[in-house]
């Protein structure tokens, strides 16, 4: 059977959704890509490059490239600010879509910008009134969010769920003082800070942070929260980020508080050795953070050698937040009639095929099915595309 007239819906325009859509388009399959926010790219497009004098394989640049592939590909039709309402399965899937009710989380300004220059539109007006106050500040080509989004029905032959994850909400761990103390940031915040400024500045005063602490496993491997999984990405991003900071500022003093360091990259032992010479590792997760003068932060932790308590001050605290099931998982699980696993991620059919589901014609790609880094999300999306191609009988 030819790919002609075959159509697949991909739900989610993050790195997994982008990759799945693009892989399918290579085989002449029409793709309807549904994204609930006004921009493609998901979280992965917000990450910064973590190269030092050499590439550290974080993969952030590959997201930019994939986004470009997708927007340049006429076989892929993108529906921004759109979400799935319900589906009807009678051979093909008939999917009802509606304008997304999702509000951008950083709407302090009237206009928000996408993270990639390839986002189209690049600017979206989220608050018309604010824009009217200063119309000159509204960039050319900015679209009003209210005018975006697609309502209607689409008939497709298969669906790939690639709705992604959400970063752990660090406010849930109240003792860290996230959003209370300005210099407590999450790994996600730090990605954006570096991407925007090319350097690490303290949110409180814009000064370069010299003494920086990373706390690992924030939200992951946490029995009290019932989060019995390792997010698999936080050690890699924290250590790569710390190396980048150290590379740009050799005087920076970095401490990593951890339980178990996970492998980073292909030559992980060599990388870890380098990290050990560049910064200090403390195998202890501090609990309490206290604000000090100049918005510095004091933390108490146990010294490994003598078991005694130490109080130490830092300029900046980075919480390595983990990967949590997506906020829409339970809703999507109902809509698509696909079950979630005990952790709240979508369940694949078995260990070897975590892209197919018990529901014929519905597939999974990326972190919707559990924690993954960029490379693993892309590989998973490739696997999903392969399963879809087989399902459609394309040859």
């Amino acid at each position, binding site marked *: 059977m030819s790919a002609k007239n075959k159509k697949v819906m991909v739900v989610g325009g993050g790195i997994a959704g982008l990759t799945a859509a693009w892989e399918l388009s290579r085989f002449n399959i029409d793709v309807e890509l549904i994204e609930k926010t006004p921009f493609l790219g998901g979280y992965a497009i917000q990450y910064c*490059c973590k190269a030092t004098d050499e590439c550290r394989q974080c993969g952030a640049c590959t997201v930019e490239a994939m986004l470009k592939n997708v927007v340049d590909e006429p076989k892929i039709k993108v529906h921004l600010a759109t979400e799935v309402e319900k589906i009807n399965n009678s051979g093909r899937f008939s999917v009802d879509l509606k304008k997304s009710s999702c509000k951008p989380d950083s709407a302090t300004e009237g206009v928000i910008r996408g993270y990639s220059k390839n986002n189209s539109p690049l600017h979206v007006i989220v608050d018309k009134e604010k824009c009217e106050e200063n119309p000159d500040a509204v960039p050319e080509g900015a679209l009003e969010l209210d005018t975006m989004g697609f309502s209607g029905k689409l008939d497709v032959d298969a669906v790939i769920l690639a709705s992604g994850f959400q970063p752990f909400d660090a406010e849930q761990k109240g003792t860290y003082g996230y959003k209370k103390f300005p210099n407590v940031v999450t790994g996600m915040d730090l990605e954006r800070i570096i991407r925007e400024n090319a350097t690490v500045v303290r949110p409180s005063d814009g000064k370069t942070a010299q003494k920086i602490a990373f706390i690992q496993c924030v939200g992951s491997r946490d029995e009290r929260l019932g989060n019995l999984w390792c997010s*698999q990405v936080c050690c890699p991003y924290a250590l790569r980020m710390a190396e980048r900071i150290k590379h740009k500022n050799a005087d920076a003093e970095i401490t990593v508080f951890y339980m178990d360091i996970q492998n980073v990259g*292909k030559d992980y032992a060599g990388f870890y050795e380098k990290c050990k010479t560049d910064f200090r590792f403390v195998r202890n997760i501090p609990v309490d953070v206290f604000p000090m003068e100049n918005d510095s932060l004091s933390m108490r932790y146990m010294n490994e050698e003598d078991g005694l308590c130490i109080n130490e001050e830092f300029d900046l605290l980075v919480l390595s937040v983990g990967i949590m099931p997506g906020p829409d998982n339970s809703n999507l699980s109902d809509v698509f009639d696909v079950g979630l696993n005990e952790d709240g991620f979508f369940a694949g059919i078995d260990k*070897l095929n975590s892209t197919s589901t018990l529901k014929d014609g519905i597939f999974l790609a990326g972190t919707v099915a559990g924690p993954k880094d960029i490379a693993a999300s892309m590989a998973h999306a*490739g696997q999903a595309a392969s399963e879809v191609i087989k399902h459609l009988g394309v040859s």
Partner: protein
Amino acid sequence: MTDMKHTDMEEINIATDVLVLGGGLTGIKAASEIAGSGYKVVLVEKDAELGSQKGSKSLIGSEEEYKGLQDLEDKIKTDSNVEILTQASLVSAAGVTGDFTARLSKGEEVIEHNVGAIVVATDFATGALNEKYGLSPADNVLTQSRMDELLASEADKEKLSNRTVAFLVGLGQEGNPLVLERVLRSVLAIQEIDGCDAYIYAGDLKVASNGLERMYKESREKGAVYFKLTEKPEIVENGKTISFFDPVARRNIEISPDFIVVEEEMRADHLNEELAEILRIDVGPLGFLQKDNVHFFPVRSNRDGIFVAGSTRGISGLPSAWTDVENIAVEVRDLLGDGKKSVAKNKVVVDEDKCVICLTCYRCCPHGAIYWGDKKAIISPVACQGCGICASECPMDAIQIGGFNDEEITEKVKSGVVSGNGTPRILAFCCQNSAFEAGEMADIFKMQFPDGLRMIKVPCAGKIDLDYILNAFVAGADGVMVMACHPGNCKSDKGNTFAQWRVNDAYRMLEEVGLEKDRLCFAGIASNMGSDFSSMVVDMEKRINELGLSPLK
């Protein structure tokens, strides 16, 4: 692809059979998926039987978790699209993607196959780490493999009842989630044996794989005791006692186990290096056949048409090997299609009058896309990635790359040196995969961008000829930037290295003519970092301002 919209295309025929090297489970799955896409597969295994990884089942978990493996193996044996060659090995592989000639030896016989793509699917090897812990093999000292065997047999399991077992993991090596998974499986199995206690001495617990944190918790709830250490415990009399100092309890903790189980390492197949040499693909970290380069992930090698699966490219359990294989199936389908390939006629052109077949291009091509005929070097338009390294290295200037020929770039250099209100005139040669994207981003996002800066797009930094740099100065540029991907991030593996070499040559020449070195810079940058681009070019403008405008103008 968009670059070739307006160029003449030609259609060429390519071979559509596929060679799969390695008859382990990964190779079997690869053969099955590719044959399922309608291509003929030759599956080559060095041993007498397929499925070599099955000898150590515990590596991959219980049979219930992996249904259908036996079916897969049985099916492949009767699949008319799959030719199985056991006790066979690859001798040579000539040609390029879409047209490889593989010679395989089986006993005395040498079999030749014309294939369009090659999949390498070797398994990992395991090895005891006793020496790392100063332990000699003995009745009480077991390798993880031996422990797996004991636990697989009901009779042997009995021997463990009312015994104390100590596990050593993550202290003799950095380890990985698969190593830990094997330990956790044993520890959980031990909890089911009457009176058998497990103590685990662990470095970093590599739980970064689905389900491991749960197994870790379950084993603790069932009574296993974990000691998380940062260095090896003291082991006396070949494992009779193990002790370490606990900083919290402030005392020595000593245990006398009946058995001590030593973790095993998982490493690259020893065949990898030989295969890499035959296939002319790069060996990456730790002997695996993929460099640590994100553009090759998940399954590409540095040569088009040669793919790497599972443990060929890194320690891999079956789930990730399966993911790889399905990605390869997609790649192979895309590459081979219906056996016809459309390529741009001017993608790369070798001038027969200039070429002296010195083979510089053959040696420097990172994609293995070049061979030679009677009169000139031949560059396969299918295998060529258009990076242009060869064009810039060719001592006879005999090679031109479509869309980036020397004349066009020379013209851009001339017209790019423009006066920006008396501000320094800076030319930045930008790799289209990284710097050019970052520069556009800086521009579009209205980040700081010097008035007199012009970007010249090149397909890869490896295309930046020494002549381009020198011509830019001759044309009156006050500063020249060569902006490449970071080392280890070049799609053509070493285009950025070539660019760096040429910049170093240019430094020497600038010195000879008395031009300041600071007028030229080499920088690595990523496509998504407009902010880095902006700060680099602004810095450059500052430096030039300090030096003053070029004396050559």
